[in-house]
């Protein structure tokens, strides 16, 4: 989780990732940010994120991202 927040902070340092649950819905992240973050996640956790995982619900909060990473790590 901390590593994830670190990655997120590198993109948007001003966001409070502990509480924010509308990263996509509130347009805090645009598609550039998402692609950057996904790239970092794939390198960091050695997972494969594909287009089918690219739905807002997976990226709206740090918690959701962590959940996505956990699921993909198990596969």
């Amino acid at each position, binding site marked *: 989780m901390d590593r994830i927040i670190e990655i997120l902070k590198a993109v948007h340092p001003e966001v409070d990732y502990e509480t924010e649950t509308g990263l996509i819905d509130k*347009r805090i992240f*645009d*598609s550039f940010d998402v*692609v*950057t973050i*996904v790239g970092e996640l794939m390198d960091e956790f050695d997972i494969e994120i594909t*287009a*089918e995982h*690219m739905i807002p619900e997976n990226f709206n909060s740090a918690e959701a991202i962590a959940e996505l990473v956990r699921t993909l790590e198990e596969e």
Partner: protein
Amino acid sequence: MSLISIDFALFVCLALLIYFAVPKKFRWIVLLVASYAFYAQSGTENLIYIAVTTVSAYICAFLIEKKKEGMDAYLHDKGADISKEEKKAYKAGVKKRQKLILIAGLLLNFGILAYLKYANITIAYINLFRLTHYGRTDFIPFRDFLLPLGISFYTFQTMGYLIDIYYGKYGRERNFFKFALYVSFFPQVVQGPISRFGQIASQLYEGADFDFARLKSGFYRIMWGLFKKLVIADRLAGFVSETMAQKDAYRGFYIVIAIFAYSMQIYGDFSGGIDVALGVAEMFGIKLPENFERPFFSKSISEYWQRWHITLGTWFKDYIFYPLSLNKGIIKLGRIAREQKMTALGKRIPIYVPMLFVWTLTGMWHGSESRYVVWGLFNFVFIVLGTELEPLSKKITAKLTLVESDFVMRAYRAGKTFWLMSFLRLFDINRDVKDAFTAFSYVFQGWGHFDINRIFENLSLPMEEMIVAAIAIVIMFIVDLIQRRGSVRAKIFALPVPVQWCFLSLLVLAVSVFGYYGPGFDAASFIYGAF
């Protein structure tokens, strides 16, 4: 039948009556029949195209899901007998077969779209090439067909569904006729919004209860859409096209006014039409996705494209941009760049390469002529520049001790975005790329000769029409401003009833009297002296 017509109004009234007269569980059938009746109005031969799309997508979705069911059953049977590696390999095999089905579906449908859209322009280019290079005048004849109503929109919507099924985002619609309704739902089939199956399916199929408040709310939205379309857009259309047609004679400020007017026209036209579509759908209890979010208040071009024609933008993002940027090849390319110590480039490759692709396609989507591709590429360049120059612009702002959230800064950024986008629309209102550049160069000439009377007298925008247009644009601007703080309709409905009546009366009055429609009135023709 246009969405902006008396016929359509009557059609909707009739459909509403029947819709609420039948039991709830049959209401979706009314929508299906209405949708096909509406579509058939545009020419019964068009039904073939939408039927092909519906049937092919239905079959592909069926096959994709069947493969998945087979897989699930197989894995369930095997249970623990199968190793993790075997399981993975088996899954990958199934995925591959699913992918083949998907690709077949995509190729067929986008193939039809591409053929209908680009066949004639391709023939034109081939003819031109043969003429200039070989001097051949035995031209290939043009194909004789019209684009079926809304084919770009329903093809995108249906293919989005198919891709979602492939991704397993939701289960397929098993009832063929229900699925046919999703493809053809009449308010959105003409010009969008392009909605997702998950967004509207249950609303389409469950049937809505009668709710007067919702009818009223939908009616307001329709009237507001008509206001934007009839009072603003249609009034300015003649002026814009005439100014562009005679741009040699009207340079400088005329061109600037025409560019501004075109921005108002296209926004009024498109967002007004969408308001009508959404308002009609609302009357049937269906909430279609929003397509515009006050785009002219955007502070950057990339933000603008998240607020203008939203459903097309998200379609390209979800089905082109993300899949491409997560494509193994592109990711590899990025990694190689980073390994070569080109970190900055490595980071940008997975973003800019797909984006270039998306913008080329977006350009082609808007029209078959090359000027639209150029338009798309300009958007791409502007977005890249905007992103790359952001740190610099932030520095300058800081140096000048300006605050980004200040009104002046926000207005400056919104203004800049507005005019950049407006100038790009020169590609839209000129015949070709060269013409668009000529028009752009005219912006900087002949400012000394401006005489507003020439607009009144020679450019289809008499003074009184211009005044009406100007007032209407100001009203539209104010309404958009209020909308920043939440739904305007909700605010109106909170007012005392007589005030609500005044608002509605004024809106209906504005549309019916100041709408720009019909044959016009020429008092002289009513004089019997000419008998």
